[in-house]
């Protein structure tokens, strides 16, 4: 189980430092990481990444994980996610752009309205993740990470909305989207970008 979580986290991040990996997993998995490096599944360096063998191993573990789920529940969760996904993506764009120009964040009322709709998105996605986690317990971690990002945003650190390379709301959201596409047996080509 832990091996799957580590390999999948590295895949989703592409390349990731050991510190950032520990942060996204919510715990230190030094032993697991060292073992995966030792067996050649992870390539070590300033950042960790998957070797071709590691990618193969991850695919096997994911297929095994999927074989135990109730497909109907996963597909229902996927549909619910898609319905809120468009709203979330629009609000991130609204945060970045105002009237087609970069948002200078001088209009406090405008920014507040965007962040209020984020609260609404969060209320809608939380039960979806809970339903998914009954089938794929590993994914409950996404609720925690989204909540952390949201708490940081509420505390005024708005970079936690969309900044890449940290587990911002947008970063976690897109990784969750990738997980859902995988779990539902879809591809990004058949989904939206």
């Amino acid at each position: 189980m832990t091996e799957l979580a580590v390999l999948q986290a590295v895949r989703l991040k592409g390349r990731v430092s050991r510190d950032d990996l520990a942060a996204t997993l919510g715990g230190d998995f030094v032993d697991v990481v060292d073992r995966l490096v030792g067996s050649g599944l992870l390539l070590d360096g300033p950042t960790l990444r998957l070797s071709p063998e590691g990618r193969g191993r991850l695919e096997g573990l994911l297929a095994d994980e999927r074989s135990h789920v109730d497909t109907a529940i996963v597909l229902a969760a996927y549909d619910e996610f898609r319905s809120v996904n468009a709203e979330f993506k629009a609000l991130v764009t609204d945060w970045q752009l105002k009237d087609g120009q970069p948002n200078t964040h001088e209009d406090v009322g405008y920014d507040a309205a965007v962040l209020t709709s984020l609260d609404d998105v969060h209320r809608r996605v939380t039960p979806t993740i809970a339903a998914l986690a009954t089938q794929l317990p590993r994914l409950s971690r996404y609720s925690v990470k989204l909540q952390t990002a949201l708490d940081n945003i509420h505390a005024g650190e708005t970079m936690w909305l969309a900044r890449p390379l940290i587990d911002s709301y947008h970063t976690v959201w897109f990784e969750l989207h990738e997980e859902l596409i995988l779990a539902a047996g879809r591809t990004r080509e058949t989904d939206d970008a």
Partner: protein
Amino acid sequence: MSTRPVILLDGDASSPPEVLGHKGHGIDMMRRNGLPVPPAFCITAEVGARYRAEREATVNAIWDDVLAGMRTLEAATSRTFGRGPHPLLVSVRSGAAVSMPGMMDTLLDLGFSDDVEKGLAAEGSAEFARDSRRRFTESYQRIVTGPAPDDPYQQLRAAIESVFASWDSPRAVAYRAHHGLDDRGGTAVVVQAMVFGNINANSGAGVVFSRNPMTGANEEFGEWLPGSQGDDVVSGTVDVQPIATLRSRQPGVYDQLISAASLLERLSADVQEVEFTIQDGALWLLQKRAAKRSAQAAVRLALQLLDDGLIDEAETLRRVAPAHVEALLQPSLQPETRMAAQLLATGLPAGPGVASGRAYTEVDAAIEAADRGEDVILVRNHTSPDDIHGMLVARGIVTETGGATSHAAVVSRELGRAAVVGCGSGVAESLAGKVVTVDGNQGEVREGSLQLSAWSEDNTPELRELAGIARRVSPLRAHARGDYPRLDRHTEAEVRSAMASGHSDVVSASPLLAMLAAIRLSGVS
């Protein structure tokens, strides 16, 4: 009520754009000068304003006038609205006092019924009648948001109401806010007899400019699409052709079109953008407006119009906004450089800026190339979270699929990367390995590493010429050097205080900008 609610645009309307709308005013002006324009009438902007307060009563009160307007269109075209054998179709277009291109609604091909389709099929072809009806049904559904009623007069009324209401659409409101336009009032509506660029191969639609609005070169410029209606050209979804191909296909029509554009330019004393349709070899002009232009073109065209005696020196300076000059002084992709380079892909501009480099389609290869010191452009079908390290090392980002809210768009904006998204499938393969320039302002990918450059007040001939004119017109003469008091900045406040202190000459780092500010402050006419 100060004017009639419905005014015929027969060249004799003699009302300002505030009443007729910009579009209606242009149509009336073209008719007055004997240009071929399909018959039209307008419902005034005053009615549009009243509609916003009281919808049903406003339309009821003017409906008899609208019907009378339709009778004149029928008489002028020898056609009948809503029935055969020679049915009349109309377009219903918005027209505010100030042009707001693409912001409000337009409906084409109105007035369909089964009987009308039969009539059109007999006059043209079954395919033409079907194509026109499909265009009508789709645009009606999209804009009025509901299935089209069978009664052509109900179609007309719903379309007019929909155009009136589009004054308050979010995009129109945002456009007015962004351009500082008055939010009160409302839009006029133009109802015009349809002409058909889709009737046969000897037909088409397009837009022509009396001079090039991108580079400012004194040459006609435009695009058209054979066998199409105007919305195809505007939508950008179909490959349009440069206007030069019209010259080889229909030289007579081309000459007539160019001389009309040139006449309108002389009459309006400004560079014109003219929308046209060719129906079975006959040219029709649908609307005209002052051409939108780049900052480069704004300066060059103002100087040309002065040389041609169409405007005086004070007006020349009014045609150049300080923002144009400020933009020109920043490094940017010059239009003539851009237009000379091969266009490789177009998409949605998603991250502002311009960047050049070699296109890589794989993240690892992109990172290795960047490590070797290469400038990298990352081109992907779409981006995912695990592409982030490739996006970080890239100077520009291009995707095949995805829109303004896609992962690539959001992350590019966060990283400050030039990005063009949704360029269509096959683009990654066709760009791979090439040195390209990503123009995230225009939404284009062009061949080669295009250099950015800036104009300067000292060295660019156009700006020197403009500064020379400004020194003759401005109440405050600004110089790059000399024994005069120094103006630290060219803000309005500084310029005002220099003028208030009785200075007639100052030294400034941006003499032209200082004088443009002075001219605007003093309202020189």
